[in-house]
């Protein structure tokens, strides 16, 4: 842990202002930020999307995205104001003294070059390191970051590695010149929880080993508490609160900071099981072309209950949703809705069968036609299924808007005039307009900020109670499962590994994979990662068990 505080700080931002020149007048996306970072210190930047976290992270490299500009303030790195330096000097610092690790490693590597060539590029071209020495250095880092076969992995191309492995190569690439400062921009956001743990351990290991200062950007409080000595909470380009990690967790001063915990606090009171099944899947199999993605999946969703479908990416949970919705015909097994078989193909389903099952997508931006007003969007199912017109339709529209807690004035807007949370509420209203019996929610809160997530989940809970809906809720987030589910089904490689009541599965999992999955979900506790790694170091840990 950090102890030294004396001496000149490594990085100092004073009253930093960055403007984006959009249509019309420039908009301040970073508005008067003061930051200090000492050598060897890890600073966590946290906030929702649009808070200016990434912009500040890039500003630490003396860089702004195209369309933005530094409109005021200073950024001193090692006593030099980066903003006064000529561009070529700034560029010389990047990669050598200040390094950057991007969110999507998959998108950041050039697919046409071998990894080793990309890893040593900055070292040989900017830092004047010899090719042989740089490669040796890279291999040592690969080994340190626990990449498989570190001596030869560099000869591979980016597409031959998994997302987590690529992220580690990118960290090695950033460390190769032993920079004074690394900016990590959400390096684990696109990864599954089990992979996330490994990356977090890597990041902490290298940063401590080389005494590198780091800025760690994330929207996940639990993640940042594992790494950061100090946390800065950002909102609308300003600092809301700044405190050492433990102090902030123990006593957050601002309401906004407390709201970042919001989703984790919701707990659903278990719904009594009425015994009546609404949706039944028996031995369902499905495949894309000749690739099987679902094998012998059976599950039951009771009337008025919520079943959470949990798993990592590629586990087949979204495919299952598509099968139930009728978008992908199953190759085996049966799908029963209230005892009656649902045809596998969409076009074989009757209008009433379509009405009874409604799917809500993950991204509300993509699920709303940008050219249809909210009135058209929600009104269409009313007209199609119930033949509502004129005043009756308008009355029902107002009812639905009230149900999803939206102002009726929004009815005549287009989707682009709404926020992400509002758009998702519109999507929910559109599904409710059909008067469904089963709602399939495919990661409906994943694209939203924490605070908005909490609101949407609370609303879904209320709606379910009021309308007696059954819900198949697909998610990879355990906090969301706690908030919404009565029952949990865990999937892996297209098959169900465990299912049961929520508390049984979450508190006393019987399957090894479920235990691994749950153990990888970070807690808002600075000692969580340390404890987890200690447990794993014990022989016979869960990785071996699998």
């Amino acid at each position, binding site marked *: 842990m950090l102890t030294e505080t004396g001496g000149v700080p490594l990085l100092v931002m004073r009253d930093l202002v960055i403007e984006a020149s959009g249509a019309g007048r420039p908009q301040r996306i970073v508005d008067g930020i003061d930051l200090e970072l000492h050598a060897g210190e890890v600073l966590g930047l946290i906030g929702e999307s649009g808070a200016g976290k990434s912009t500040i992270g890039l500003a630490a490299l003396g860089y702004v995205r195209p369309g933005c500009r530094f409109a005021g303030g200073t950024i001193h790195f090692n006593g030099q104001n980066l903003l006064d330096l000529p561009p070529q000097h700034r560029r010389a610092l990047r990669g050598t003294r200040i390094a950057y690790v991007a969110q999507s490693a998959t998108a950041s590597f050039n697919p046409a070059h071998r990894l080793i060539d990309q890893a040593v590029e900055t070292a040989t071209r900017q830092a004047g390191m010899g090719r042989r020495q740089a490669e040796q250095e890279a291999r040592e880092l690969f080994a340190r970051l626990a990449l498989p076969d570190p001596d030869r992995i560099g000869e591979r191309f980016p597409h031959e590695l998994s997302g987590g492995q690529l992220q580690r190569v990118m960290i090695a690439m950033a460390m190769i010149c032993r920079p004074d400062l690394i900016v990590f921009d959400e390096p684990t956001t696109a990864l599954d929880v089990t992979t996330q743990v490994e990356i977090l351990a890597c990041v902490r290991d290298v940063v401590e080993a080389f005494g590198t200062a780091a800025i760690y950007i994330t929207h996940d409080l639990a993640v940042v508490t594992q790494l950061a000595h100090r946390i800065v909470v950002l909102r609308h380009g300003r600092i809301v609160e700044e405190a050492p990690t433990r102090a902030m967790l123990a006593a957050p001063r601002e309401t906004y900071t407390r709201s970042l915990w919001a989703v984790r606090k919701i707990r659903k009171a278990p719904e009594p099981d009425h015994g009546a099944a609404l949706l039944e899947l028996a031995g369902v199999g499905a495949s894309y072309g000749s690739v099987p993605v679902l094998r012998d999946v059976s599950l039951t969703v009771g009337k008025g209950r919520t079943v959470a479908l949990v798993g990592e990416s590629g586990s087949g949970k979204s495919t299952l949703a598509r099968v139930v919705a009728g978008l992908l015909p199953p190759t085996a097994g049966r799908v029963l809705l209230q005892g009656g078989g649902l045809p596998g193909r969409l076009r074989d389903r009757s209008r009433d069968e*379509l009405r009874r099952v409604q799917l809500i997508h993950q991204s509300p931006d993509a699920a709303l036609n940008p050219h249809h007003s909210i009135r058209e969007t929600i009104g269409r199912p009313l007209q199609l299924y119930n033949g509502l017109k004129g005043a009756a339709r308008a009355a029902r529209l107002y009812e639905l808007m009230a149900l999803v807690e939206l102002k009726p004035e929004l009815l005549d807007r287009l989707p682009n005039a709404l926020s992400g949370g509002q758009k998702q509420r519109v999507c929910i209203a559109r599904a409710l307009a059909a008067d469904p019996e089963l709602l399939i929610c495919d990661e409906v809160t994943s694209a939203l900020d924490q605070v908005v997530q909490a609101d949407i989940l609370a609303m879904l809970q209320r709606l379910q109670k009021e309308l007696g809906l059954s819900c198949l809720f697909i998610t990879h987030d355990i906090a969301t499962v706690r908030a919404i589910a009565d029952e949990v089904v865990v999937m892996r490689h297209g098959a169900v590994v465990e299912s049961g009541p929520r508390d049984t599965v979450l508190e006393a999992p019987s399957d090894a994979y479920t235990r691994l999955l749950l153990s990888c979900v970070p807690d808002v506790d600075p000692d969580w990662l340390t404890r987890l790694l200690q447990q794993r170091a014990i022989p016979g840990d869960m990785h071996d068990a699998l």
Partner: protein
Amino acid sequence: MTGIAALRTAPLSARIGLAIVATYLFCLLFAPLVAPYGETEIVGGPWAGGFWDPAAEGPATLLGTDHLGRDVLSRLIYGARNSIMLALLTTTLSFLTGTTLGLLAAVRGGLIDQALSRLVDLVMAFPTLIFALLVLAVAGSTLPVLIGVIALLDATRVFRIARAVAMDVAAQDFVEVARLRGEGTGWIMRREILPNIVVPLATEFGLRFCFVFLFIATLSFIGLGIQPPTADWGSMVRENAAAISFGILMPLFPAGAIALLTIGINLVIDWAAAGNHGLSDER
């Protein structure tokens, strides 16, 4: 309104383009009022007069007379009517066909997409001019045949564009939502996808219009397009091509008229495509 506001902020190039197009439109609509002489009226000797030759005998003609002694300016003005209206009609027809089939292929996919796409590949495999010449030679060079042939040939290009942009939109979740709701193909094409591809299609319309226009001029130049004595810029160039060897400027005027309109339309399209001004859709 917004259109007028957009005009005020339009760059110079767009204003020039709009001025050119407006002038042509004016001539097109009010040809009998604007033209000093009739379309086929013989006013003097062949290739005589013009502003560069104030001493010439006969009635005053700004751009001189053609090989039969008809007023070039009047024929240019009447020609605008024929050339532009024909191109407009043909392009509209080709867009109706191409967009409808393109959307159908994108939405239905599978066999329908394969059949339509291969058919289009087949038609596109023939060089356009040769194909047009063949059909016109067999079926005779009448106006309906001319329009039909060019519209068909052009519709293949429109099909490709419409299908490509519609495919992108058809992959979006909101189209999936519409399918799940049980909407028919027609609704998905018209209500879900079409509004989202209007901008690229409109841009393409402008470009295609110029191509069609030039194509008709080409056909007229080789004698298969609009038939005399009807005035048309392409045939005017052909009829008077020989004059060039005598140092007479006359054939350059219809050629220039074609070039100027093409430039004008492209200036307007560039502006419209860059800012989507004048088109209501912004994504």
